[in-house]
C-alpha cells in the first residue's frame, strides 16, 4: 500500500515550548491511523500544520503527493478536518452553517442539498437543521462537525478527538458513518483520541510524547512489545497462585496472572497442568500499552 501522508523531520516551536520535535511518520492509503499521546504531546499542533493553518519551522509534509509548501490548495480539496474545538458559526443555524461551508468547496444548489440531506440522515440530525448551532448540546454539535468535514467527500478525514464527551450511542453512530465512508470510498482516517478502545481498532498507531514518537506499530505489535500476556485462571487456590511468584491480580472469581509473552504463558500452563484446568489467555490492552509507553518516558525524564 502506498503512503498517502508523508511527514518528515517536522519541527515546530512556540516561544518556550518545543511542540513538535523532528517528527517523521507515514500514513498508508485507506487505513485507520491512530495518533496518540498525552495532553500537550503535540497532536493538534501536527494536525494544524498538516492542514495549513499553522506554519511549520522545518521539515516536509506531503499529502497524496502534494507538498504542503506549494500545493496547499490541492491538499485542502482532499482533506476534511474535525478540529478539537468546534469551528462552525455559533450564531447561525445548522443549515446555514453547512450550506455556507459547502459553498467553500464549490458545492451549491441541488448538489449541496443532496449531500447535506444525506449526511443529516446518516448522522441523524435531520431534526436539528433549523436550530442555532451554539444552542446544541456538545454531542449534537459534534455530529454537525463531522458532517461539515465530510461535505466534500474527502480522501482523508482528520479527526482531532472527535468522540470526547460523547455518549456511547453517539459514538457508535459517528464510528459507523466514518467506517462506512472508509469502506465504501477508501477514505483514509487520521485519528487522535484518548479512548484506547478506539485506537485498538486502528491499522497503525503512533504514540507521541513531547513532540517525538515514543512508540509505533500495529496494535498487535505494540501489545506484544509493551505489555505481557495475561492468563486468567478460574477456580484456583490463591496460595498456589502465589507460589508461582508472578505478578497477579484477584478479580471476582478468578486470578489474572501477568506473563512476559504468549510463549511464557504456554510454558507456565504446561508446567502446572493441575492448576490450569479452566483458563483463558489474553493480550494486554491498548490502555496498558499507552500507560507503559508514556509512563516509561516520564521515569526516563526524571
Amino acid at each position, binding site marked *: 500500500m502506498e503512503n498517502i501522508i508523508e511527514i518528515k523531520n517536522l519541527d515546530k516551536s512556540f516561544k518556550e515550548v518545543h511542540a513538535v520535535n523532528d517528527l517523521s511518520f507515514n500514513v498508508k492509503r485507506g487505513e485507520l491511523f491512530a495518533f496518540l499521546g498525552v495532553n500537550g504531546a503535540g497532536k493538534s499542533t501536527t494536525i494544524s500544520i498538516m492542514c495549513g493553518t499553522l506554519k511549520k519551522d522545518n521539515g516536509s509534509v506531503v499529502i497524496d503527493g502534494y507538498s504542503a509548501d506549494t500545493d496547499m490548495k490541492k491538499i485542502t480539496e482532499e482533506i476534511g478536518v474535525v478540529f478539537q474545538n468546534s469551528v462552525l458559526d455559533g450564531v447561525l443555524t445548522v443549515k446555514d452553517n453547512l450550506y455556507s461551508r459547502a459553498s*467553500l468547496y464549490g458545492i451549491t444548489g441541488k448538489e449541496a442539498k443532496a449531500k447535506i440531506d444525506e449526511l443529516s440522515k446518516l448522522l441523524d440530525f435531520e431534526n436539528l437543521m433549523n436550530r442555532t448551532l451554539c444552542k446544541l448540546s456538545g454531542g449534537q454539535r459534534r455530529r454537525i462537525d463531522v458532517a461539515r468535514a465530510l461535505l466534500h467527500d474527502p480522501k482523508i478525514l482528520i479527526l482531532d478527538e472527535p468522540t470526547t464527551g460523547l455518549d456511547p450511542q453517539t459514538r457508535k453512530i459517528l464510528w459507523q458513518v466514518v467506517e462506512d465512508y472508509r469502506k465504501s470510498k477508501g477514505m483514509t482516517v487520521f485519528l487522535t483520541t484518548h479512548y484506547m478502545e478506539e485506537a485498538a481498532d486502528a491499522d497503525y498507531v503512533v504514540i507521541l510524547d513531547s513532540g517525538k514518537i515514543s512508540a509505533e506499530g500495529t496494535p498487535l505489535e505494540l501489545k506484544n512489545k509493551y505489555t505481557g500476556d495475561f492468563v486468567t485462571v478460574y477456580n484456583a487456590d490463591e496460595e498456589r497462585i502465589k507460589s508461582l511468584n508472578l505478578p497477579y491480580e484477584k478479580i471476582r472469581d478468578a486470578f489474572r496472572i501477568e506473563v512476559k509473552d504468549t510463549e511464557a504463558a504456554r510454558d507456565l500452563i504446561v508446567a502446572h497442568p493441575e492448576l490450569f484446568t479452566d483458563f483463558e489467555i489474553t493480550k494486554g490492552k491498548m490502555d496498558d500499552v499507552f500507560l507503559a509507553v508514556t509512563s516509561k518516558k516520564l521515569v526516563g525524564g526524571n
Partner: protein
Amino acid sequence: MKTFLAMTKRNIKVFFKDKGMFFASLITPLLLLILYATFLAKVYKDSFNSALPDFISVSEKLVNGTVAGELFSSILAVCCVTVAFCSNTLMAADKVSGARKDLFITPVKKSVIALSYYVGTLLTTLIVIAVAMGACFIYIAVNGWFLTFGDVMLLILDVFLLSLFGTAFSCIINSFLKTQGQISAVGTVISAGYGFICGAYMPISNFGSGLQKTLSLLPGTYGTSLIRNHALRGVFAEMTKENFPPEVIEGIKDSVDCNIKFFGRAVSISAMYAIICASIAVLIGVYVLINVLDKKAD
C-alpha cells in the same frame, strides 16, 4: 463567484444575528446627530453669523440651512469611517472562534475570503449609514431645505464612496487585530480621532498651515469636502440669488472647507472624486494583498 456570494451572505447573516453589533453600529451616528444638533449647531451658527459682514442681513432659514448642511456633512463624513470600523468585527471574531481556520482548510482563494469580508462589512455599513442619512435629511428638511434632487443624488454617491473608503481602511487595520477588545479600542480611537483629521469636528481651515498641509495628504479630507460641497451647494446658490457679494460667499466656502488646497493649489471637485476613487482602489488592493500573503490562520 457563487462561493463569494455565499460567503458574503454568511458574513451578513452572522452580523445581523448579533443584534448588539447592529445597534452598536447604529448608535454612533445617532449619538453624533444628537450631540451635534445640541452643541455644535450653536457654535457653527455663531461663527457663521460673526463671519458675515454687518451690512448683510440673512434669513433665519438660510442660516439654519447652512448650519444643517455643515452638520450633515460632518456627521456623515465621520460615520462612513467609524461605522465601518464598528461593524467590521467579524474578521477578528472569526479568529477567536476558529471559523477562520475552517475557511483556511478549504480550497477557496484567500482573496475571495478577504473580499467577502469587505463586501459584508460594506453592506452592513451602508445599511446603517442609510438610516443615519435618512435622519440627517430629515434634520435638514426641518431646519432649511435648499437641496435639489441632483444634490441629493450626489450626496448619496459621496457617502457611498466614503463608505467604500472607510470599509477598506477598517479592513486593513482590522486584518492585524485578533480580539474583540482590540477592535473596540481601535474603534474608539478612530471615532474620536478621525473626526478631527478629516475636518468634520472643526473645519481644516481653522488649523495652522502646517497641519493643513499634512491633512491635505489624507484622502479622507477630500471625502468630507465633497459631501460639504454638495450639502451646501443649494445654500450658496440661494445666497447668490439674495445678492451676497461673491467674495463673501467664497470666504464662507473657504471657512467651511468647500475649497481645499493641496499645497497651495485648489482641488477641483472632479479631482476630489479621482482622489477618493484612487485611494479606495489602492486600499482594497493593499488589503487583499495582506490577506493573500498571510500564511497563518490565527
